[in-house]
């Protein structure tokens, strides 16, 4: 019998440190597969946000810099402006990108920086232990919203991709999820498309990925996947949010 799958070449050998069932691990593989398939390994530069994936440089076998929390898009801007021939992407969590990094992300999008943002939306601050994120759902209990997110005090879940889609410089935005096989396949396609938009110099591209965080959701991995379907996608509908011709 023939082995029909293998670890992507753009991933180093190190086992992931993420919790069991964590979406980061799945997304890492997808990003690496796309880089492999598009032959971008030797061209890619990753600007890494701070979050559970802060040491993703242990996994991605591409040139990588760790940006200060929230500033990955600004760092990527600096890189891309110096090296327009490279493929530059950020890898950021929802807290990183939609809270502290709001301005950097929004303005990079508005300027149409030719970078790709891999946006892990797990509705929570994973790394710091499960605090409320701007993306947390109404009623979601977190360590800093122990009674559940109250929209009147803490606001509504921020649909940041929809915000970015409004901007002139953004070219491609799609929301995907990694909670079942079909969605995982779509997620991979979306990542490929985003890189394509960058290659074609069409504008800023974002793949928002609804990603399970069983640990901080206090659910099993399987429950987490179901929660994405049943609850999260109701607030964050999957699909293409914006796509310029390119």
């Amino acid at each position, binding site marked *: 019998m023939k082995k029909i799958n293998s670890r992507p070449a753009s991933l180093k050998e190190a086992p*992931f*440190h*993420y*919790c069991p069932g*964590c979406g980061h691990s799945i997304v890492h593989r997808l990003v690496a597969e796309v880089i492999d398939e598009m032959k971008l390994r030797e061209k890619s530069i990753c600007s890494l946000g701070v979050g*559970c994936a*802060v040491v993703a440089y242990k996994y991605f076998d591409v040139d990588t810099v760790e940006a200060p929390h929230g500033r990955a898009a600004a760092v990527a801007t600096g890189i891309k402006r110096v090296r327009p021939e490279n493929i530059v992407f950020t890898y950021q969590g929802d807290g990183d990108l939609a809270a502290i990094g709001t301005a950097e992300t929004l303005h990079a999008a508005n300027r149409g920086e030719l970078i790709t943002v891999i946006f892990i939306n797990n509705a929570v601050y994973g*790394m*710091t232990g499960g605090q409320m994120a701007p993306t947390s759902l109404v009623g979601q209990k977190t360590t800093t919203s122990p009674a559940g997110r109250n929209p009147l005090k803490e606001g509504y879940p921020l649909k940041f991709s929809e915000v970015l889609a409004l901007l002139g410089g953004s070219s491609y935005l799609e929301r995907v999820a990694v909670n079942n096989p079909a969605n995982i396949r779509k997620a991979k396609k979306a990542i490929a498309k985003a890189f394509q938009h960058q290659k074609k110099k069409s504008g800023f591209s974002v793949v928002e990925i609804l990603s399970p965080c069983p640990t901080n959701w206090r659910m099993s991995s399987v429950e987490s996947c179901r929660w994405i379907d049943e609850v999260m996608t109701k607030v964050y509908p999957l699909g293409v949010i914006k796509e310029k011709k390119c």
Partner: protein
Amino acid sequence: MLIKTVFSGFGGQGVLSMGHTLASAAMLEGKYVTYFPSYGAEVRGGTANCTVSISDEEIASPVASQPDFVVSMNQPSFLRFQSLVQSGGLILVNSSMVNITSVRGDIEVVEIPTSELAEKLGNLKVANMIILGVFIKVSNITPFTLLLKNLPAILGEKRSRLLKINKEALELGFNYLQG
């Protein structure tokens, strides 16, 4: 006398609550006590541990570079801490999950088949309290009765329904080595 104990294992094995339970009891006794958890929240997937220091005078450092006692719930933590424990010290190991190898001659090792015992009680989650019971017995570090008395306060209202099983587990452990 200053005694430092490290409780260690995987996250999820309840090592922090072992330490917390012990520390609280010792505080009741009027000792100087510090409790210091490892905090790896920014780094996923590590082993968890905590250090309880109990003394008759002020405690300098809540950290133990050379603990007197170690309670080790899994293999990686056993490997790590067996080399740190003081000469003459003691390690309590969860033999259900630890293959004891390369042990130093100058320390004492006590093996407890914690998981099996916990299964007897019908709740794998109280393995930590069982081994804590054993530890109190072996170390004689704080009065067992105080620890039991303090249990409701530790568990709080929310988890008061767990009081019985935890008590049972502690007692099972405390009496284990007699049998």
